[in-house]
Every structure is written in structure tokens, then in C-alpha cells.
């Protein structure tokens, strides 16, 4: 059973072998793995416990229910909207089920050059395979293409661009198109549906509405966590404390780094909170003569990898994939306001869209202000701006090749409308300067990087903190670099890898 912390009026004071902070991909896999090994484990989640019946498919309500800061999280300068899950199951509740392994080239770079010796492709392959089997990951086929994705495929085919169907963890999918608001049909084979029930069945004790505010240490060793139980409005009302032989952080690259900073943990490498990568993304929309109704059907079933390579310093670091937003997100991301904005929204039904996702090399930073608030600093380097420009240009080319009568790149000052491939040079001319494009990021990673060299990493390649024994990290924080692909399956897998060592320590 997953306990709602809001119901525990007297607070919470527990002992366990291991306490896991966060119940997203990393935390849930850790809980499931440890429970299966007979470890006495407690899981703490700051957000609420919601299930299929709660996923109303109402966009505003679900933004508030499922997202950090009720959908308002962004970089400090508001340039990049950061979409992160909050609640039992974390971002796996609202993500679009994309499953793609971290490319071997990236893993080799980590193992060979960055000291993450245990993360080589060969050592992770069995964990990837086991994770994919457990979560029913399968490549989709033409039967899953909605009109938005079909048009994207047409454009890629016309241009001869490298492209393919994607792999997803969905079973019994009703193709409703509301994946980003949580699945009311329970088709997602995610942390909430698959892993946490197994963890609980195995004896794990999981608490929602339980915010961890400090990692407790004694003589260089993690001995537990403390924090607050939160009421329905998210206000603290009672203390919580869990004393444990080991602590594992799985609260995301933002949350785990913030907790490490807030706890005043030693930071010999100086990298805690730094090294933040987010896969910044910008969108391009095409207007077609026929209705597209892009909100219907399964999202992101096709991808273009023509401009995505993984060796460091590559000049091709952008992944193109169809994207479609429901009306609120579309309205917020569409430049301007008033009559002109309304005229754009009137074309909504006829729009197809895609996103250019940058495999970024611009490190940002997670901080905690004196007032205790999380602050995310992030700015695209000129090289990453060039990659975004490349992606927007080629995305526009794909939509024109698919038959769009016009393509719009959403520059805040004077959106660019293109009707002919001969005009694509205008995208290069405009580029991707700061504050000119509405950017979104859904994949924060890298803020507690993994390396066996304590000068380079915060944790070693077993996931244990270099300076705090018994403290492990099992989420996307540990990735030493951007991975260039959706991270969920890699987070599950790395957590499975780290769990072996946590079990020994706990």
C-alpha cells in the first residue's frame, strides 16, 4: 500500500535498511529491486499519489496535479520552461513512453574518458534488456501513426532523411492522445503501474506527500533523512524522519542536486548542482489544408536521426521528433497575444508540429537560494544555438516536404512564416538568439555526475557518493553528459545497476 502522508497527523518516524527519496523512474526501480532482494526499504515522495481515475484529461488540472511548481517551473530567466513530474511515479506518469537506450558511443565516452567504468555498453546491456522486458518495451508500427506523425514520416521519406518508428512502453493503449496528462486507461507500463506495485508487494513502505529536506549524516556516513509531511495544498504540517543504513536519492537531476546542496553535503569535486544538461527544444509548426487534429492518437511514434550523432564535438546534435500540445500549452508557446494570437490559434486543427531537441553541451546549474527555493540557471552556448537553428531549419524543411502550405518558426519578435524551401535560409539568418524562441526542456540530467575519479564526479560508478558513505544516487543526476535521447529507460536501467551496491550497503 502507498500511504498518503497527508493523512498522518502525528508525523512520521521510521527505521529501515534503506530510504529512497523520490519514486520516479530511478526511485521506483530502486524500491522494486531492493524489495525483491528482501531489503527493508522506505520510499518517500513529495508529491501526491494519483492513479488512473484522477487523470481527468483536463489540461490545466493535470498541469497542476502532475507537474513541479504546478506547471510553472522554468529557468531563472524564464527562457526555458522545465517540465518535470511531481507525484508518485514522477515523470513516468506524464511522459510519452519513449524508450531509447543511451547510445553506445555515449556510454563508451563515459566509461573510457570520464571515469564511469561500470557504465560501459557491455556492462549495462543485460540491465537494459531486463528493464525493457519488465516494462514491455516494443517498437511501434504504422498502426500507431496519428496524422501528425504520418505527415512527419512523409516529409522524412520525401527528403530521404534517416528516420524510423520509435519504441514505447505501452500496453493496451487506447490511442486517446492524452498521454501527457497521465493515462486514464492505465496503458503506460511505468513506475506507477508496474514497479511500485511490485515494490509494495515485496514489502517496501512507500509514502506520498513526504518531502525530504535534509540528508542526515554522521561521521561521513549517511544515516537517514528528515523533512516534512505535506497537506493537500502542499503545506508542511508535521515532521518526518527516517533513520536508515543507506540513503538513495532518486528525486531527479533538479531535486536530488538541490537536496544535496540544501543538506550541506561535502562536495570535493565542486560539481554538485553544476553540469546540468536539459535537452533544450524548440518547435516548428506547419499548417496543412486538411485537418490534422494533432492532439489525437499516439504521440511521438516516429523520429528523424539524420542530424543526430553522438561523438563529442559533433556538428550534428539535434534530434527531430513530432510533437503536439493541447490548447493551453499551444497558446502559451505561441508568440504574441490578442487578435494576432487568436488568428494563429484558429488554425490549430490544421497544424502539424515537431520539435528540435538539442543534445546539449552547455552546462547549467541547479542552486538553492537563501530562502530555500530551487533556482535553475541555464543558457545555450553559441554552439548549441547553432544546433537548435539547424534543427528548426530542417524541421521546417520536413514539414514543407510533407505538404504544409506554410511553416511557422515561433520567434517571439516577428514569427517567421515560410512557404517554400528556398526561404529556409531565413532560419539560418535569424538563428536561435536568447529569449527569441519559446524553449522547453523535459530531460534534466547530470548534476551529480558519475565518475570513479573523485575530482570529476560526485558519485562513483556504483552510484555511491565520494565523500558520504552509504549515500547513493539513482536518477538522471548521475549521467556525466547529455545523452541525446529520452532518458527514462536509461534512468530505470542505471538505477537497476546501482541497486546491487545499495543492497550491499544497506
Amino acid at each position: 500500500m502507498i500511504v498518503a502522508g497527508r493523512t498522518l497527523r502525528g508525523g512520521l518516524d521510521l527505521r529501515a535498511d534503506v530510504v529512497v527519496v523520490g519514486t520516479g523512474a530511478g526511485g521506483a526501480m530502486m524500491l522494486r529491486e531492493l524489495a525483491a532482494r528482501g531489503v527493508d526499504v522506505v520510499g518517500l515522495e513529495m508529491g501526491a499519489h494519483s492513479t488512473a481515475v484522477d487523470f481527468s484529461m483536463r489540461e490545466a488540472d493535470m498541469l497542476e496535479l502532475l507537474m513541479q511548481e504546478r506547471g510553472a517551473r522554468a529557468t531563472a530567466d524564464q527562457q526555458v520552461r522545465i517540465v518535470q513530474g511531481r507525484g508518485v511515479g514522477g515523470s513516468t506518469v506524464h511522459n510519452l513512453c519513449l524508450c531509447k537506450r543511451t547510445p553506445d558511443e555515449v556510454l563508451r565516452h563515459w566509461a573510457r574518458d570520464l571515469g564511469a567504468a561500470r557504465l560501459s555498453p557491455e556492462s549495462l546491456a543485460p540491465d537494459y534488456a531486463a528493464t525493457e522486458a519488465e516494462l514491455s518495451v516494443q517498437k511501434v508500427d504504422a498502426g500507431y501513426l496519428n496524422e501528425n506523425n504520418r505527415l512527419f514520416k512523409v516529409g522524412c521519406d520525401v527528403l530521404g532523411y534517416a528516420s524510423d518508428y520509435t519504441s514505447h512502453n505501452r500496453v493496451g493503449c487506447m490511442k486517446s492522445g492524452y498521454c501527457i496528462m497521465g493515462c486514464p486507461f492505465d496503458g503506460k507500463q511505468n513506475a506507477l503501474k508496474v514497479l511500485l506495485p511490485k515494490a509494495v508487494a515485496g514489502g517496501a513502505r512507500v509514502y506520498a506527500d513526504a518531502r525530504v529536506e535534509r540528508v542526515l549524516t554522521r561521521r561521513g556516513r549517511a544515516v537517514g533523512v528528515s523533512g516534512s509531511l505535506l497537506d493537500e495544498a502542499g503545506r508542511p504540517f508535521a515532521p518526518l524522519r527516517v533513520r536508515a543504513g543507506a540513503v538513495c536519492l532518486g528525486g531527479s537531476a533538479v531535486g536530488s542536486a538541490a537536496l544535496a546542496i540544501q543538506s550541506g553535503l561535502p562536495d570535493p569535486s565542486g560539481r554538485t548542482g553544476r553540469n546540468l544538461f536539459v535537452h533544450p527544444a524548440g518547435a516548428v509548426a506547419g499548417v496543412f489544408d486538411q485537418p490534422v487534429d494533432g492532439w489525437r492518437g499516439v504521440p511521438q511514434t516516429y523520429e528523424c536521426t539524420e542530424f543526430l550523432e553522438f561523438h563529442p564535438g559533433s556538428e550534428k546534435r539535434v534530434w527531430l521528433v513530432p510533437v503536439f500540445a493541447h490548447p493551453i500549452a499551444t497558446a502559451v508557446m505561441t508568440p504574441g497575444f490578442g487578435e494576432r494570437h487568436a488568428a494563429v490559434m484558429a488554425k490549430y486543427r490544421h497544424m502539424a508540429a515537431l520539435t528540435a531537441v538539442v543534445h546539449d553541451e552547455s552546462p547549467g546549474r541547479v542552486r538553492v537560494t537563501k530562502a530555500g527555493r530551487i533556482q535553475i540557471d541555464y543558457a545555450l552556448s553559441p554552439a548549441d544555438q547553432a544546433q537548435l537553428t539547424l534543427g528548426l531549419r530542417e524541421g521546417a524543411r520536413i514539414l514543407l516536404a510533407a505538404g504544409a502550405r506554410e511553416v511557422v518558426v515561433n520567434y517571439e519578435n516577428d514569427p517567421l512564416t515560410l512557404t517554400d524551401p528556398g526561404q529556409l535560409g531565413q532560419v539560418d539568418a535569424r538563428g536561435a538568439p536568447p529569449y527569441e524562441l519559446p524553449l522547453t526542456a523535459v530531460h534534466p540530467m547530470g548534476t551529480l555526475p558519475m565518475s570513479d575519479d573523485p575530482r570529476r564526479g560526485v558519485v562513483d560508478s556504483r552510484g555511491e557518493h565520494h565523500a558520504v558513505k552509504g549515500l547513493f544516487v539513482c536518477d538522471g543526476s548521475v549521467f556525466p553528459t547529455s545523452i541525446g535521447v529520452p532518458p527514462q529507460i536509461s534512468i530505470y536501467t542505471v538505477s537497476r545497476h546501482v541497486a546491487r551496491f545499495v543492497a550491499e550497503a544497506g
Partner: protein
Amino acid sequence: MARAGVAGVALGLGGLTLHQSSGYAAPAGDALRALSPKEFAVLLAAGEVILQGLDPELAHEAARWGDGYVARQSSWLRREVKALLHLFEHAPPLLGAGWSRATRLGLEARSAYLERWRASERALLRQGYGGLKSIVFMGAYRDPRAWAHCSYGGPPEHPLRGPR
């Protein structure tokens, strides 16, 4: 929402911005949850400009929803939004948009004033513009009247709850 400094700038305008609260009628209907009548009026005034081209009733709906949204936010974000609304109300003279408060500007002048926020070189004003726009569009495009404008079919019947 603008995180760094909106509250500080609003406070910098002194009692003028934060304490001139007379002349703002409370909206009819349910009591406000987070916003003062003045703050509600400012959000409504911004919404009337941002939502031009849609059903005029939506601006009121968006302001109502915005009040609840702000009430559900953390205390610091609530402070930031309230400060933003005060700043928006009293900054027209600072931006060369006349000597009136924003709520007393005509629709066209208010639109030009908001455009100055949008295109400002000051990050603070651009962020404030983004915050206002987000709250207003969230409040408006959750409403089926706005869905009709963009031909959005809305969600299917919930498998566990039935029709709403």
C-alpha cells in the same frame, strides 16, 4: 513567473503601488481566494487585452481561475504574482504609456502598453509579460468556449468516471 526582483521593484515604487487600493470593486460571485479586488482588476484588465479575438467572457473566467491558481501556489510565488500585478497597474508612466493606471487605459492603449512589456529590453518586464500571458491563457484555454475557437474536440469520456 518572474522570480528575481518583481516584488523588489514593486516595493521600490513604494506605498504608491502597494497601498493605493481604493476604487477597485470586488468582483461579483464567489469571494476571492488569493488576490485583492485591485489585483483581480489588474489581471482582468490584462486578460481583456491578451484574449482579444476570443469570447469576451473568457477574460473574467481567466481572472477567476487565476485567483485560484495563485492561491494554490507556494507563498513566494504568490508574492511574486501579486507584486507583478501591482507593477503592471502602476508602471504605464515609467514606460511612456501615459499617466493612467493600466486598468484605466482604453483597450488599444492597454494593448500598446502590454506590447511594451513584451518587447522590452528589460528581462524583468519580459518575464512579467510571460507570467501574465501564462496565467491568462491557462485560465482561458481550459474553457470549452476557447476550445471552440481553435476547433479542439476536448477529451473523450473518462473510462472510470464517465462523462463530465
